[in-house]
């Protein structure tokens, strides 16, 4: 079997397209649930915590896939600064996707809240109970979420720019496998 150098591996593509809607949904759930008084608050909160943990598991798997599989190179004619930003943005994504659920989990731990997943299943606290720490982590959760959303918008814009304007194969490297 000859190596496909132009596309991400099937496992990387599967994880990307599985996680993309989950992460985007998570950002909307998060910003929506803290701004509503309606019963959506309860519904969204009940989704937010287990989904966050699910994303933590998925990003861990994906990180291993990323380290063990070669990513396709960017086109030679892409300016170097753009290539640098592209690579940087991918590592920013990994950092944020790990940080968001871990900060959320720590924040609930520091605030003394139960970390409820479903039914009787709760996760243990991962930091000591301390409201000063809670306050810092709570703010960090918001700031990192906004940063993640901004990174997503930039990523989306760049992906569409590659797909619709440069049409250089970068978009299809994640969108599909070998023809």
């Amino acid at each position, binding site marked *: 079997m000859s190596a496909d150098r132009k596309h991400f591996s099937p496992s990387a593509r599967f994880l990307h397209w599985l996680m993309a809607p989950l992460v*985007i949904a998570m*950002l*909307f759930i998060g*910003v*929506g*649930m*803290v*701004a*509503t*008084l*309606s*019963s*959506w*608050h*309860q519904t969204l*909160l009940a989704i937010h915590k287990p989904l966050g943990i699910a994303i933590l598991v998925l990003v861990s798997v994906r990180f291993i896939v990323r380290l063990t599989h070669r990513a396709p190179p960017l086109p030679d004619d892409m300016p170097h600064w753009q290539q640098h930003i592209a690579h940087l943005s991918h590592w920013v994504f990994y950092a944020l996707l790990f940080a968001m659920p871990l900060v959320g989990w720590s924040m609930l731990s520091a*605030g*003394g*809240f*139960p*970390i*409820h997943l479903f*039914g*009787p299943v*709760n*996760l*243990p*606290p991962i930091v000591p*109970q301390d*409201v*000063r720490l*809670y*306050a*810092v982590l*709570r*703010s960090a959760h918001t700031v990192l979420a906004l940063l993640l*959303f901004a990174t997503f*918008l930039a990523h*989306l*814009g760049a992906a*569409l*720019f590659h*797909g*619709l*304007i*440069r*049409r*250089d*194969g970068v*978009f*299809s490297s994640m*969108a599909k496998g070998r023809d």
Partner: protein
Amino acid sequence: MTIDPFSPRPPERQTIPLFRLAAIGAVVAAIGGAFVYVGGFVTPHRLTPQRIVNTFEANAGVHPGFRRNHAKGVCVSGYFEGNGQASDISRADVFKTVRTPVIGRFAIPGGDPSAPDASVPVRSMALDFKLPDGQQWRTGMNNTPVFIVNTPQAFFAQLVASKPDPVTGKPDPVKLKAFFAAHPETAPFLSWVKDHPPSSSFGNAAYYGINAFRAIDANGKTHFVRWSMVPEAPYAPVTAEQKSQHDFLDTELRGRLASGPLRWHLILTVATPGDPTTDATQAWPEDRPHIDAGTLVLEHESAQSNGDCRDINYDPTILPDGLKPSADPLLAARSSAYAVSYNRRTHEVAQGLASAQSPTRSHE
């Protein structure tokens, strides 16, 4: 010719495709705009938890480190001993014949942490039951069996109508009258308060869970319940002499606990189909089954400035397996507004803005 817009670029085409560029911009802007809209950033007139808490702050001022409502209170601790009698309707571990540690708080409503105790007829009891394996049950109860309003919108309208006049320091009676006239659902609460003089102590009042909840039994079946804590200490009305003392509830509680623990019975009232489960202003008929689920024993008290209750958000939707919220709109609203209050006051503590000493104890 292909119709796939993502097909490789024809090499001869070098002009910037403005239409495609605009389409990309539109997609990114639409998603960004949706995010901003969902976050409530462009709809300042929407009733949000932030607006509710802002209004508490407008009415009572900002008191760094304190809860935005029920700001004045005292921490207590003890345990709850279940007797197994409620296990038929709820599988929650707390109802089994086990002892569950409890961190509680008595308080009076309002945003001023140094308000005189006699300023309000309402007392509240908040409890955090610490179950094994990380589960918790948090409840915030008042000494009135019904609540004054049944929607967050009406609660907000009441807050706005209660804003103290800057000259008199009291709410404008005309505005309050207009509020009550527009909200006939307040009648059961008002008549209950009229007929029941406030208790002389935090320790001899009954406290009611305000909202309906769902108890889930071992088979997964739902039973709608309300709960109350009924004191063993006999009720006595507040005296004129007590009313003249600024912090009589706190002082009285300390005296009572010095001579022994205080006990309440947790009573679960089970609804009959058709009983209102989403309207906190409506009591259920007296003949509904009452289950004595166990005994709450409170042993110690401490000032909230350094007590264990200070750092707890008594969010009534934090429930163990075997209890779930009802669809009462006040429950979700309480949860989201308490979170805003908690976030603000914990940030004030983190920034060192909170006063170290509680006002109620500072003149001891």
